[in-house]
């Protein structure tokens, strides 16, 4: 870590360098947010808001100027045509599935990494997790296609061994999309899980053991509930990434798995109907937000407002 060194005093409190104290106390502190906020406004808020505004204009092929004639025709169309409203549920369903699979795959690994004291083994596992992030998503997906395609590694091996007669459909379907999304999002899941599991002091698990809990019981009554913040953070990130992903369903689903981002792309890039594409984007954004909020509320209720 570089930057300002932080020292811990004998009483365990963090001693801040004088310059940080001065900034933290004065009005200068609030100026620190300006660069990021300005960036965010110019490069996210303005373009996204204008796109969303476009959703309230009637479709006009090739037109991207905002007109004063507002209409909700686009939204009526989305919610009355099954091809569009089914995509909403498909998107949410796939994103949820990716979260569950990611959690099942990621938790055990994160647990082992968090509990391994051997620094060599730990570094190796971390490299394993993070190495995939060094490659661009598209390249990683091409790799997956080599593995999962009809003539891919898996199918040709099984065919050669005579275990199957025809290639298994591993790609251009929901299975392929989910595998692709899990592959892309797993590091995020694992990293947020590692963070929260590491912060659980080992003496808590030991206390549970000494009170008579088996290893499994201690895990489920102490470690797992205490890692909830990490599970929550991990699933929220993965859900958002999976829900909004265009590249993965495009490559792994081969345009056959019609999730909302695919529809948006088709409307905008293929037919030039920016207004309708924008309306789908609004629905994607709102439904994702809604799903996340409901999930968050449910999780808070389950935790009983304890944390």
């Amino acid at each position: 870590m570089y930057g300002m060194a932080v020292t811990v005093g004998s009483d365990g409190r963090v001693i801040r360098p004088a310059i940080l104290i001065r900034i933290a106390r004065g009005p200068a502190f609030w100026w620190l947010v300006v660069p990021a906020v300005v960036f965010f406004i110019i490069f996210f808020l303005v373009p996204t808001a204008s796109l969303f505004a476009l959703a309230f204009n009637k479709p006009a092929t090739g037109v991207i100027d905002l007109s004063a004639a507002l209409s909700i025709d686009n939204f009526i169309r989305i919610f009355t045509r099954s091809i569009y409203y089914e995509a909403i549920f498909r998107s949410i369903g796939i994103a949820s599935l990716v979260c569950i699979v990611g959690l099942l795959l990621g938790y055990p690994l994160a647990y082992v990494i968090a509990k391994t004291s051997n620094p060599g083994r730990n570094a190796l596992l971390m490299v394993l997790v993070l190495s995939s992030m060094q490659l661009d998503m598209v390249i990683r997906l091409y790799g997956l296609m080599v593995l999962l395609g009809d003539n891919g590694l898996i199918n040709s091996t099984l065919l050669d061994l005579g275990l199957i007669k025809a290639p298994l459909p591993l790609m251009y379907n929901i299975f392929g999309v989910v595998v692709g999304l899990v592959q892309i999002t797993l590091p995020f899941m694992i990293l947020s899980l590692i963070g929260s599991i590491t912060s659980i002091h080992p003496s808590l698990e030991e206390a549970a053991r000494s009170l008579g809990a088996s290893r499994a019981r201690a895990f489920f009554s102490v470690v797992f509930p205490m890692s909830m913040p990490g599970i929550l953070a991990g699933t929220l990130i993965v859900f958002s990434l999976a829900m909004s992903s265009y590249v993965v369903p495009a490559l792994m689903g081969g345009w056959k798995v019609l999730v909302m981002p695919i529809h948006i792309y088709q409307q905008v890039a293929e037919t030039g109907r920016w207004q309708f594409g924008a309306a789908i984007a609004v629905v994607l954004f709102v439904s994702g937000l809604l799903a996340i909020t409901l999930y968050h509320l449910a999780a808070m209720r389950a935790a009983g407002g304890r944390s």
Partner: protein
Amino acid sequence: MSDIQLVNLVKSYGEMQAVKKISLHIKEGEFFSLLGPSGCGKSTTLRMIAGFVMPSAGRILIGSDEVTHLPPEKRDIGIVFQNYAIFPHMSVAENIAFGLKLRKKSQAEIEITVTSALRQVGLVGYEDRYQRQLSGGEQQRVALARVLVTKPRILLLDEPLSALDKALREEMKYWIKELQRTLGITTVYVTHDQDEALTMSDRIGVMQKGRLEQVGSPEDIYERPETLFVTTFIGHSNVINVTVKGRDNGKTVVSFGANTILARALEGEVAPGSAAKLVVRPENVVIGRTGEGLPATVLTENYQGALVRYRLSLGEQEIVVERQNQSNVSRFAPGEEVGVSWDPERSEVLVA
């Protein structure tokens, strides 16, 4: 309630031996402290008794049961950690009920037990609080209550007071001791604080570098240290380099510089002429006028309220002397020539 037996217990981490062949019998109902400097293997020993660390060799018996290879949950022990390990996602009542639920007690019985445990530790009305709403001392009490309701055979405590401030530490020291005495539970207490060990324990095991240096009552350890390490670790001691001359009347004769004096008898034979250390505690040295004992010179006087501490030069060496600061005793000024003496029985010869 049970006694604990450690038989040739060893724990190695690779090349490093954290615990080197410890054998120890902790009696039923005894308050036993493992005392030693940081890294001497106290926690490792305690954690082997608890079952969190598997011994590399040796055996552990609790009562008549061999527990060496049992997992912690099968050992019927209670342990209190330095950070108390209160489950933060459970209320105080749920924390205390944790072990009872695992023992499949009825809800009614659990409620009664939790209530009486809270009364016992003086935390009535704290049922619904969470860990973050408790002070260190209160967490400590919850941790003890949580352990004691399960009626463990032995109680293990790893530096339970080190996270508390000084005043609270004093209070908890007596409170824990009193609780232990009332319950009569066999207790192993790990600490690096000699005051805690001396005031609370029935017996103390002083550890250094993975070995038990000496086991004995607080008085044994303080008054009759058997090794130089124990001498210097417990309290402050003057250590004077001497040469053993021989024996006289059941005492040991030693000399240093031009002085020849007597000290408590050595155990075993020591060849005259061997180098040794003479150990005298500062409070056992008497200062008088020149001629009353060995000639010495006052180097500094250090006023400490109830005590006055002198640094003296004695022969070629330096010693520290403490005197009660009473109105009828005279004080000495730096540079003054004085005489020092001590009861030979209060001085010890240790052969290096």
